[in-house]
């Protein structure tokens, strides 16, 4: 899951990024509106956390221009909490709205819900054979036994599970699992897939040579 955070307050940006990375998300950042829009338009993010008050280009404008080309889920962050502002944000195509100051766990929960909804999974539990994925708790169990996965491994399983039945290319996986700070030329993806197979059974992730990976329904 790759997320873009557009926020001009450096300390807030740093705190958000740290927490999101620890949750296993790949996180890109932008400190002003122009950079934010540019990134949001070129990369297929799973979600964008967008501050409204930004230098150069404000959040409303980014949202308006982004919606012309992309359906990326957007979570608006703002210090203004008048209902008129909320209505404006939602009307411009924001998927959710959070008022500063917010609780970090709430932000994370809302992001999970956004990503789930955009993959049209309204339930927060996915069951695939004997494997059970709880999207809210971010836990995976097999035959009722909890399986311990690293954050990155979990996100890999979650992404494939949300797109189960589809073949997901390596490029797409790289795009969604790793951010600008990761070295995409490494064999990190193969290592993660191999680790997941060890924990959940070799057949859980199928390899389509030359195409990518897939979790069968």
């Amino acid at each position, binding site marked *: 899951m790759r997320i873009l955070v557009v926020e*001009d*307050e*450096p*300390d*807030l940006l*740093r*705190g*958000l990024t*740290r*927490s999101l990375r*620890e949750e296993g998300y790949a996180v890109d950042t932008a400190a002003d*509106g122009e950079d934010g829009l540019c990134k949001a338009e070129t990369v297929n993010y799973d979600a964008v956390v967008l501050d409204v*008050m*930004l*230098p*150069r280009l*404000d959040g409303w404008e980014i949202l308006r221009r982004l919606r012309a080309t992309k359906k990326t889920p957007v979570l608006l962050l703002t*210090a*203004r909490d008048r209902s008129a502002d909320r209505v404006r944000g939602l009307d411009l195509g924001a998927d959710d709205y959070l*008022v*500063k*100051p*917010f*609780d*970090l*766990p709430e932000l994370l929960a809302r992001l999970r819900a956004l990503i789930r909804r955009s993959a049209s999974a309204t339930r927060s539990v996915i069951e695939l054979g004997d494997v059970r994925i709880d999207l809210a708790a971010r836990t995976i169990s097999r035959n009722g036994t909890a399986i311990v996965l690293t954050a990155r491994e979990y996100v890999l399983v979650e992404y494939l599970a949300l797109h189960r039945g589809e073949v997901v290319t390596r490029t797409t996986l790289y795009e969604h699992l790793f951010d600008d700070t990761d070295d995409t030329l490494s064999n990190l993806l193969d290592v993660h897939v191999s680790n997941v197979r060890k924990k959940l059974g070799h057949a859980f992730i199928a390899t389509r040579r030359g195409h990518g990976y897939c979790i069968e329904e």
Partner: protein
Amino acid sequence: MRIPKSIRWRLQLWYGALLVAVLSGFGFTAFHFARARQLRRIDEGLQKRVSVLVDALRVARPAWRTDVRPRPIFTPTQAELFDDEAGHYFVIWMQGPEPILSSLVAPAGVPKPGSGDALPRMRGDFRETFLFAAPVNCVLVGRRISAEQADLRTLAALLVTVGSAVLAAGFFGGWWFVTRALRPIAEISATAEKIAAGDLSQRIGTAETDSELGQLAAVLNSTFTRLETAFAQQARFTSDAAHELRTPVAVMLTQTQSALARERTATDYRETLESCQRATQRMRRLIESLLELARFDAGQEPLRRVACDLAKIAAECIELIRPLVTARGLTMHTALSPAPSYGDAERLAQVVTNLLANAVAYNRTDGEIRVTTELRGGIATLTVANTGPGISAENLPHIFERFHRADLARTGSAGHSGLGLAIAEAIVHAHGGTIAVVSEEEKGATFTVRLG
């Protein structure tokens, strides 16, 4: 009796009482005049008949003929005087109390008047006059005046009826008039009530702008407008202040919650604490600025005014900010002529520092800052000009407003709370001076402070 407090009732009472006084004054005068005229006419008739009667008696019995029983002898004209519709009668007495002669229409038992009785006399429905004259002892002429008295009663009733009608008409007319005159007041009070209930957008709609109440309404309306503006400004200021405090709180909340989510290294904790410190410092600066403005607003900020020189103050401020100017690659030009003034040097330094910090913050790379001080027409004047992007015509009128920022997102990360110019303006105003800005886009901005 309790006097009603309402203007309508007091007005009604006043002119009601006035009307009653005027009407009763006129009524009584008219009645008395009519009555006196009637009585005079009656008395003249009686007097005339007394003379006629005495003459007629003297004709019949000259003074020397004491043997003849006195009996009036009337000419035909005189006789008609005692045979008229008014029913005049006469009674004649000699020495004894019993009359010796009375006319046919005379009522029975007319008492002989005493010599001291007042003339003429009223006896029930009768009015009588008399004369003690020879050849008899006493002659009396009288008549019944009940018809005239009835006429007077009719007149009195008429006067009372007409008076009451006029009073009633006056009262209702007055009621209508007062209601009409007071209608704008009712409107004013209804509007004021709505405003008191919190709806500041209400205005008094009155068409009669020429009347005194119309003028009052106009004055009140303009007051309400100013009140609404001040209220809206205050509300915006409060909401802006809350908004400004939200971001640092969000930083602290996010940083601490993120740090506490798991075990961290000492470096991580240090970084978290540092960002919390920055957020707290920002809140402290904001709170101090807010308090300072609040004290200026309340007129509680004391100024220690002494003789000082704006040029010296500016020079000190320039030295303090020079490292920042050099670091940003800007060039500082100064032309500081003595500009003696009478003010709080510390506060004025705050104004100068603020303008300088602004000139640095809103400047282009390798730009310039020009500071001048001089006496312009006897007024200590300071100008600070920069070569920045300038201020758009749209933003220019709002530049001194609290929390106004041309770029809405330029929040406090660089230390600008958005209150600096508002505080500078408050300080200059407290000194009785003015602060103004001239700017065009892409042509920099020039701030001018004049200390009256």
